[in-house]
Every structure is written in C-alpha cells, then in structure tokens.
C-alpha cells in the first residue's frame, strides 16, 4: 500500500488549480491579441430567444469584459474558476433601466445571488431593486469551469465582480460624458442615473445605440465601510419569487411540445442491465417511444403519469454479481485499510502501547443528500444542438459531459441553469442531463426527465461512511502532549468529475475527506492526522461540508473526553492548547465568545446539560454550545449558541441563515440519518424511513454571534456544520455519563 507523507496539502491544491487557470488564461489571451484595442466591440440585439417559463425581458446591451476577468482570475485566492473562454457576458442593461447580472455561480439557497447583487449595486451605483440576477447559461454567459460549491462563491468573486461593476460604471460615465457633452469628472452616478452639468441620463439611455465602448483601466474599489448594501441585512433578492411560488426551479422548466420520460435503473449495488421485456409498455396509452441503452431503459410518453405507468409494465432482467452487505462495507472501511496518507504531521508519532495513551473509536454512517427537488432535466436535442434546462452546480461540466456523450460540439450545448431546489453537493453530478439529452435525441422533441424519490435515494452520490481512531496523551499539567486522528473514508473528491485525475494523483489524498480532519490546536507538541482511503462499491461524493461533520465529531468528542479525564473545564482546556497569532487567535476568539454568550457550565441544570465544540473549516472558525435534555432516550436540543468568524459578512442576515441551516442539518445528520445495505440494495428509499430532523427535532432558539476576524469574506455555507455533532455528544456525556461514539446517536 502506498504511503506518502503529505503536508501542506491545501497550498498545493490551490496552486494546482491556479496553474490550470493560468493555462486557460494564456490560451485566451492569445486569442484576444488580434483584437487588442482600447475600443471594444459590444453586441447589441433586441430580445434573447425566449425559452420555457424562465425567459427574461428584452435586452439592449451586453457587456463582455473578458480580458479583465482573466487577469483577475489569475491573481485570486481562492481562485475564480471560470474558464473565460466562452462568449462572456456579465451585465446587461435593459430598456427599463434594470441591470441583469449573469451569475457564474448558481443559487441553491445559500444566498449567493443576493450577496453578488449587493456587491454589484455598491460599485455600479444602482439600487438593489434594479438588479435581476440570473444563472449564466453556457451559451450566453460566463460559466464556472468547476462548480458552485466549497462555500466559495462570494469569497472567490469578491474582488473581480466588484471590479467589473466599477469598470462598467466608468464605461457608462465615459459614454454619458460624450452624449451629454460634459467632462467625465463632472459626472456622478446614483440609482442607475448619471448626472452632471445640470443634465441627467439613465444608464439605459446612455447604453442605447452604443456599439463601441471605451474600457478604462480598472478603478479602485471603494472602502467596504462606505457601502450602502454590502455588510447590511438586505432581504434576499429571490424572496418574493420563493414566497409566491414562482416557477423558478429545474422541475418547473418546460419547453414547447415537451414529452415526459421515466427511466428504469438497477436497484442493486453493482447490478447491470441484461435485457428488458417492453412489449406490454409499448402499447400503453400515451407512450411515444421506448429507449434501451446498455445502462437503462427509458419510456417517453405524453404525460408523466403515462410514462410512469408504462415504466411499471416493463420487466427487466438484471445481472447482479453480488449482494453487498452492511458488514462487508464496514469491514472494507477501517483505519488500517486502503491507501494511507499523512495529511498533517507535527512532532513525533505516539506509540499506541505506551503507558497513558488513551484511544477511542468513532464512526459515521452513509448519508443521503435528500434535497427536496429531485434531479432531472428538460432537454431538447435537434440538428446537432442541445438545449438543457436543469438544476446543476456544475454548468461547465454538465455541458462537457453532454457534448461528449452525444458527440456534439461543446459550443452547441447550451446549459441553462435554473434555481436549485437544494444542492448540498448532490448536483455536482448531473449524469441525468445526459440521460435526458439521449431521450430527446431519440424522439427529436424536448423531453423532461426526473428521478422518482426511490431513484433519487438509490442513485445518490452518498456521503461516505467513516471510521476514526483518536489517540492522545495528557502531560503532568493535564494538557495534551500528543493528539492523533486516524480516519478512514470512502471517496469524496477522488473519482469525482470535479477533480481531474491528475489533481488526485498530485495530491495523493482525498481533499474532501480531509476537511476538518487536521488538528487545529497549535500548541499540542505532537499532533498528526492520517487518512485511509477506500473506494466503495457504490458512489460516494461531496455532501455539504464533506468530511467536516464526522471528523469534528471524532476530534472534538475526544478532546472533551480528555478534558474530563484531566478534570478541566472543556473551554479552558481548549484555550490552553491554542496559540495567539493568526487563525489560532481567531479560533480562540470564537471559543471565548461562544462560552461567554451561552454562559457555558459543566453543571446539569434542570435536567439540561451543555456541550461545547469548535472547528475551523476553509479559514472560517466556529464554536457552538448546545443545551440538551433527554426524554425517554430521545435527545432534545433546546438551544444552540454559535460564534462564527467568516471575515466580512456581505449579508449578515444570510450568514445567520446559513448558520441556522447548517446547525439544523448537522443535527439531522448527527441524530437521525443513516443509509444501510439491505439485500444488496441501498435503503431506505423514502423520507420517513430515512429519518431526518423535522420541526419538532430542531431547536427553538439559535443564538448567533458573528465576529469579523478578516477583512475579506470567507466561506459561510459549510463551516458551521462542523461543531454541532460533537457539541451534542459532549452534552449527552454530561447528562448521562455515556460517551456516544457512533452516528447517528442512539442512547441504549
């Protein structure tokens, strides 16, 4: 088995991505060279082909700022991952003097569209109500070559998007100066209106009939504290659409003359398709065509109900080489098995046999994404061109995959991203877009295809199960001298379409499984983290926060146990092992704030105990305190206090909303959720049996304290998922004397 010492993984990862970016940037630069001129051509056209229910207004002005984007994308950390080689379009101004922002990132609930609109409004000088944010389609906008994920959307666009907005403001001013016959210096801008020399013009008036624009050098950005929108709890820009039930999701998309499809896929892990008897289905009402491929059988019918009935009438013969069992998976996934990789190494290794070494084992189960909107797509493939509307986190990759699978040119595949009914990492894999495209190709008409809930559960790209061994040793002062985290996980990043094989080879480790796996207490003399990676017989991949929930559960439960053993308060115990500079100070701060605001105590009061835990993920530290009681062995979380440092909170209300969602989803993961193998199939296949936290299982009160420990926005959507599982386990320990070591928590 390969064994490589692997340190400083993150830095290498980022520089690898940057190399990729530079390569694509330099290619495009070459392409741009011929057109080098300060006056750039802009397309003008009225009306974008309207499609389905998601079409938007009339356009008079498109504004590509490719070169700028590319130069910015090279200097960014974390990088903006747009390929920059597509026809680029960021902003449009409509005749109604509205600004349409084509977002390279999709909106899946995380509030990114709102944050981006705030950033644009403050530099472009328009009111936020004047901005409409849409997901950029691959034919008309800049799509992200990687994904919307990793909690990086706002952080990665923080500088480039504001610079582009500021550039556009200056372009409009430059043009206005010409039209109004005044100097640029005499002009000011506000709410989409340019004023000066006693005259005013709206941006739309300025833009009308202009085909060549002067692009000025990039203006300086304004100081953050002068912004009107950034930093304020602006209501979500998609709030009304979501409260009044507008048709904005992939499931709501339609195309004229559209047919519906249902597909049969294997139910057993590892099963393949042998043959199908479709004779009965073929003659059923509404059935238009039956499509057989080596992997699936699809029915296309006039309505969804007809397609579903016909599907039920098809008999399929499967080749099931083996019926996998729960214990076989458990056996494969053990610390000590698979590929070993040291992901953190400071000081010496512990000798497990040495006197005073404490060891504990932890585990977490297979988790399902269970996003409420099923995966699906509406596809129209005709004349060598494909148009596909769907909920996807990977517009660029979906485009590439459809093009490859159907033998089309990439530029002839237009992916139109809709609002997502939840992402959580599930929509980083969009093989159903290929299915829909093939079905449409077979009938030459638009086809809508989506997963049933059972397909959704059985074809999920699951959160992998994990196994952990913690080892530690206290010194004479009752503090940890050594701490080790050994963890086994299935694929997260490895084997994902998101990570080119070469990245995995360079890194040699699964960077997704590694999230939250390293020890954050800098003053522990000897500490290390060791990964054991195994690819399981079913697909596992990214699930919101990746390894963070399980890794933090193991580490912070163990820390708590060691504090108890040392007879120390768990807050003081943690603080004593943290340094005072950089991120160590930021972690220290969230711990102190959470402890103070919650009034943390080790005592059980009125049948309620508190539990404490902390973590740092992608540079955003978070500490949480829970108040827990138990009724009939059922764990009840009453209140969570959360201290979180994500640097600049572009929208503090949405940061809070993400903290609340992360906490409640973490409660669901830690207390309720579990997939198992039953008769060779992944089970359960429906909500209910797949237990999740509902209203009655979530706390009435979540008290959030935001701390700004950095002058840029840092990741928000996942880091607050870290501490919650451990915090609950630590509270249960104080309440019952029992240490929970397996998720989901079951008190026996």
């Amino acid at each position, binding site marked *: 088995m390969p064994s490589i010492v692997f340190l400083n993984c993150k830095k290498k990862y980022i520089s690898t991505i940057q190399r990729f970016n530079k390569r694509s940037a330099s290619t495009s630069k070459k392409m741009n060279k011929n057109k080098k001129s300060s006056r750039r051509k802009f397309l003008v056209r009225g009306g974008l082909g309207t499609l389905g229910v998601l079409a938007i207004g009339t356009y008079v002005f498109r504004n590509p700022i490719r070169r700028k984007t590319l130069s910015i994308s090279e200097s960014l950390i974390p990088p903006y991952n747009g390929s920059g080689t597509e026809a680029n379009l960021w902003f449009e101004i409509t005749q109604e003097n509205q600004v349409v922002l084509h977002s390279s990132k999709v909106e899946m609930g995380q509030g990114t569209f709102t944050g981006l609109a705030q950033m644009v409004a403050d530099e472009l000088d328009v009111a936020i109500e004047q901005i409409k944010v849409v997901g950029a389609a691959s034919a008309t906008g800049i799509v992200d070559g990687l994904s919307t994920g990793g909690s990086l959307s706002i952080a990665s666009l923080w500088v480039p998007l504001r610079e582009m907005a500021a550039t556009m403001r200056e372009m409009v001013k430059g043009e206005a100066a010409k039209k109004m016959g005044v100097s640029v210096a005499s002009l000011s801008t506000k709410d989409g209106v340019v004023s000066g020399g006693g005259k005013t013009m709206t941006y739309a008036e300025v833009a009308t009939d202009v085909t060549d624009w002067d692009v000025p050098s990039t203006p300086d950005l304004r100081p953050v504290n002068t912004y009107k929108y950034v930093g304020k709890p602006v209501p979500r820009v998609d709030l009304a659409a979501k*409260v009044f*039930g507008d048709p904005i999701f992939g499931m709501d998309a339609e195309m004229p003359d559209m047919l519906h499809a249902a597909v049969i896929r294997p139910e057993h892990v590892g099963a393949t398709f042998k043959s199908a008897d479709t004779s009965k289905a073929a003659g059923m009402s509404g059935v238009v065509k039956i499509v057989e491929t080596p992997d699936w059988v699809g029915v296309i019918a006039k309505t969804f109900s007809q397609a579903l009935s016909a599907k039920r009438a098809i008999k399929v013969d499967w080749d099931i080489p083996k019926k996998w069992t729960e214990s076989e998976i458990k056996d494969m996934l053990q610390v000590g098995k698979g590929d070993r990789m040291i992901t953190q190494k400071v000081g010496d290794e512990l000798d497990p046999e040495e006197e005073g070494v404490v060891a504990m084992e932890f585990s977490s189960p297979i988790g399902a994404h269970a996003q409420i909107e099923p995966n699906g797509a509406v596809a129209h493939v005709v004349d060598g061109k494909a148009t596909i509307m769907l909920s996807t986190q990977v517009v660029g990759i979906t485009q590439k995959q459809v093009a490859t699978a159907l033998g089309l040119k990439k530029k002839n595949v237009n992916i139109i991203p809709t609002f997502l009914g939840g992402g959580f990492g599930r929509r980083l894999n969009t093989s159903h877009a290929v299915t829909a495209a093939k079905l449409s190709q077979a009938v030459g008409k638009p086809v809508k295809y989506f997963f049933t*809930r059972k397909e959704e559960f059985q074809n999920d790209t699951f959160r992998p199960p994990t196994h952990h061994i913690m080892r530690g040793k206290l010194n004479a002062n009752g503090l940890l001298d050594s701490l080790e985290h050994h963890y086994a996980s299935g694929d997260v990043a490895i084997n994902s379409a998101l990570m080119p094989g070469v990245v995995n080879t360079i890194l040699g480790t699964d960077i997704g499984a590694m999230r939250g796996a390293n020890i954050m207490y800098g003053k522990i003399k000897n500490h290390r983290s060791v990964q054991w990676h195994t690819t399981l017989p079913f697909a596992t991949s990214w699930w919101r926060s990746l390894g963070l929930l399980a890794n933090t559960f193991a580490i912070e439960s163990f820390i708590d146990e060691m504090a108890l053993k040392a007879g120390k308060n768990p807050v003081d115990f943690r603080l004593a092992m943290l340094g005072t500079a950089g991120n160590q100070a930021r972690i220290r701060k969230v711990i102190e704030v959470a402890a103070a605001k919650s009034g943390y105590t080790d005592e059980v009061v009125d049948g309620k105990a508190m539990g404490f835990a902390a973590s740092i993920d992608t540079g955003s530290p978070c500490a949480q305190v829970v108040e827990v009681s138990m009724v009939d062995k059922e764990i009840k979380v009453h209140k969570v206090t959360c201290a979180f440092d994500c640097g600049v909170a572009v929208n503090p209300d949405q940061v809070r*909303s993400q903290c609340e969602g992360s906490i409640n989803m973490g409660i669901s993961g830690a207390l309720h959720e579990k997939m198992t193998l039953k008769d060779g199939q992944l089970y359960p296949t429906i909500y209910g049996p797949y237990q999740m936290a509902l209203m009655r299982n979530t706390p009435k009160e979540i008290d959030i304290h935001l701390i700004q420990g950095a002058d840029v926005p840092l990741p928000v959507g996942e880091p607050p998922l870290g501490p919650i599982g451990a915090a609950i386990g630590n509270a249960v320990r104080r309440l019952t004397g029992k240490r929970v070591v397996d998720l989901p928590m079951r008190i026996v």
Partner: protein
Amino acid sequence: MKLSFNINGQPQSVEIEDPNTPLLWVVRDIMNLKGTKFGCGKAACGACTLHVDGEAVRACSYPAKFAEGKKVVTIEGLGTRENPHPVQQAWIEHVVPQCGYCQPGFMMATAALLAENPNPTDEDIDNNIVNVCRCATYTRMRKAIHRAAELGQE
C-alpha cells in the same frame, strides 16, 4: 373523465384520462400552476401540500377524482405580491426561504393550521407542521408561524 372544480377562485373543467391521476399533476401539468412541488410522490415530504375545501392535502397522493366539485387552493391562490396572506407576509418578514423548494408546501400547511388553530403553541406547531425542509429553515419557520398568527389576529 371530465373533472370540474374550483381552483384559486376560478371554476375549471379539465379532461383527465385516469381519474386516479394524482391531483398534483393535474395542477402542475394541466393547469400549469408550478408552485405546488413534487418531492417524493408518496405523501412523505409535504412539498405538494395544497388546500382542498380548506384542508391541507398532500396532492401527490390525492386522486384527482376526489377534487370533483371541490375548492382547491394552491400557493398561487393563497396571496399575491400586492395582497399577501399573513403567512406569506410573515415569511417575508423573517426571510425564511433558502432554496425555497419546500416553502410553498410549508406555507400551505401553516395556513391550514392557522385557519383551524389561530394561535398555535410550539407543541401544536411540532405536531402539525411535519413537512421536510432539507435546507433546515425550521428555526425561522417557527418564528414566522407565530408571527403569522399575530398578523392573522390583527
């Protein structure tokens, strides 16, 4: 069969091939009202909740024939941007939705609860609002439900 019912205040007649077709697909695909969502098709998530004669019903598992002659209200008929239902008003005040997909179902379930029980306790909410929200916006929903109760009594 010919199905006649009242939807969002309008009398409507539609032709359906199978009287057992779930009401959800009649509403979504025939009436083209997309606010009522498909989540599971098995009455297990609540995304498809709408009102039939004032009662919250999971439309994915409600045969369309039972709607004959009844009053169906979907999220599109609950309130409008100009005249939002108290539940929608409360949802706006608390900025409840994240991805938003489950939200029409929750708002319809809440509106039905409040019609029957204008001032629900936390326990009433726990026992009656049993839809699934994967974004886990439960904490804000609870606040919004109490606020909607307040607004409803004003």
